């Protein structure tokens, strides 16, 4: 079996971050979080039932009360984990999904806040996921707060961010400080590069470890069952992944 692809490392890291969850929901257009949740479900089979809902999917949808049910179930405390991205994310874990520059006449307008301003407050384990790791994404202060990373005492907030996963590394989030800490660096990247690409300060040890790559069992589940499952909702992403795998194998064979 070939070495893990970058996207496979991300998916496996997400599966690890989901350890112990009973229910997880994934927004539309989120193939990597969806694959991570599918891998978690496959790994836990026989021990713990992991329920997964993908917004907009017919197959992976355990809701029957329309699109409000995701939010209701979060409000009831039945949703353990969710993913948020962000056009901008800052060091306080504030998320901006609206746009850059002045509001409302944004220089660049993104789609909008979706459910972030609610789910960030109510889902205990929110995983921030943004593959692009650059200073334009990870800024000192977001231009618009779609959802704040932390809340003052007295504000009802059972949920919030626990981690930030990017194309370069994995951060944890400490709500009390508040701030991020670099937990590991993905293969092929280094601390200097991450510091240069991050517009906010973060904690780290002198030499953060490399992100744990998937073991053979995880990789096998991933390239078999998970890839098949993913195909229903994300056919283009699945096809692309299969092409990369074929390319990687071809390279190994020719090497």
């Amino acid at each position, binding site marked *: 079996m070939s070495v893990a692809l970058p996207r496979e490392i991300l998916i496996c890291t997400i599966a690890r971050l989901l350890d112990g969850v009973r229910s997880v929901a994934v927004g539309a257009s989120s193939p990597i979080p969806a694959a991570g949740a599918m891998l978690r479900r496959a790994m836990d089979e026989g021990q713990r039932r992991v329920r997964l809902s993908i917004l907009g999917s017919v197959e992976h949808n355990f809701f029957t009360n329309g699109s409000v049910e995701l939010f209701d179930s979060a409000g009831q405390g039945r949703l353990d984990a969710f993913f948020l991205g962000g056009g901008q994310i800052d060091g306080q874990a504030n998320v901006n999904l609206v746009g850059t520059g002045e509001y409302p006449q944004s220089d660049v307008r993104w789609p909008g806040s979706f459910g972030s301003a609610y789910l960030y407050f109510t889902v205990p384990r929110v995983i921030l996921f943004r593959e692009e790791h650059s200073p334009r994404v990870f800024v000192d202060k977001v231009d618009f707060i779609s959802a704040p990373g932390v*809340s003052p005492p007295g504000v009802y907030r059972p949920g919030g961010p626990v981690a930030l996963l990017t194309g370069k590394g994995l951060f944890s989030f400490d709500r009390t400080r508040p701030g991020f800490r670099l937990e590991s660096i993905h293969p092929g990247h280094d601390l200097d590069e991450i510091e240069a690409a991050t517009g906010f300060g973060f904690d780290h040890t002198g030499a953060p470890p490399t992100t744990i790559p998937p073991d053979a069992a995880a990789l096998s589940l991933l390239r078999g069952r998970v890839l098949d499952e993913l195909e229903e909702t994300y056919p283009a992403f699945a096809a692309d992944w299969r092409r990369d795998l074929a390319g990687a194998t071809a390279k190994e064979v020719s090497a």
Partner: protein
Amino acid sequence: MTANLQALARRVKPGQCVALPVDYAGVSMAMTRPLIEHGAGDLHLVCVPTGGLQVDQLIGSGLVRRVETSAISLGEAGGAPRFNQAVREGRIELRDATCPAIHAGLLAAQKGVPFIPMRGLIGSDLLARRDDWKLTENPFSDQPDPIVLIPAITPDIAIFHAPMADMQGNVWIGRRRELAAMAYAATETLVTVERIVEHSLLADETTAAGTLPALYVTDIAVAPRGAWPYGLWGKYGTDTSELIRYAKAARSEDGFAEYMSRAEVPA
């Protein structure tokens, strides 16, 4: 009670508040061109809870004064180009929301109450920018416990597409209950369907469970593949290549005009 698409479109009056569903719930794309031809403008659109192609086309056609939404995009095909340009140029009033706030506003209308409280939101710029939302204290708590009140959203008209309706005007919506929520909240509801069935959808408990009663349905028109290029759950998938074709064309005003002048629903 079935009419043609043009007759449905004529029910929309300038300045009205119109509720439209999320991409995957049953967008009546078949109504988009009739609405544009009818030309009732100055509309206040409410996206339940997000918008896409239909909203972008109505904005591009100059019919929209205000948009209340949690997001607008073309999904895999990227950002909504006419919306984005209108925002840059300040030509539409934005009411940026978050999905459950739109659901809460519709729920308030469904319940006949002026507001519904909602958790979250506090500390967001959404709340800071929405002077129609109110921050209050939870009167049931003996500790400080701020909470936001969302006022009722009462659309004049809701418009969506569904798989089928019966001769009595009952509409099958399956588990897409946001369509029911829109209809409960709206004064009038216009529905396009793939087909009309002869038997009553309420006669059988199995189909009744997923049926919006005719009580809430003002008028219905038949429009086969009426969600295209969006998909209709359980019936057909999204035509992503068409969305991409639109996204490219609509980058410019001219490209948008040309796209709108010729694209037709495929047979």
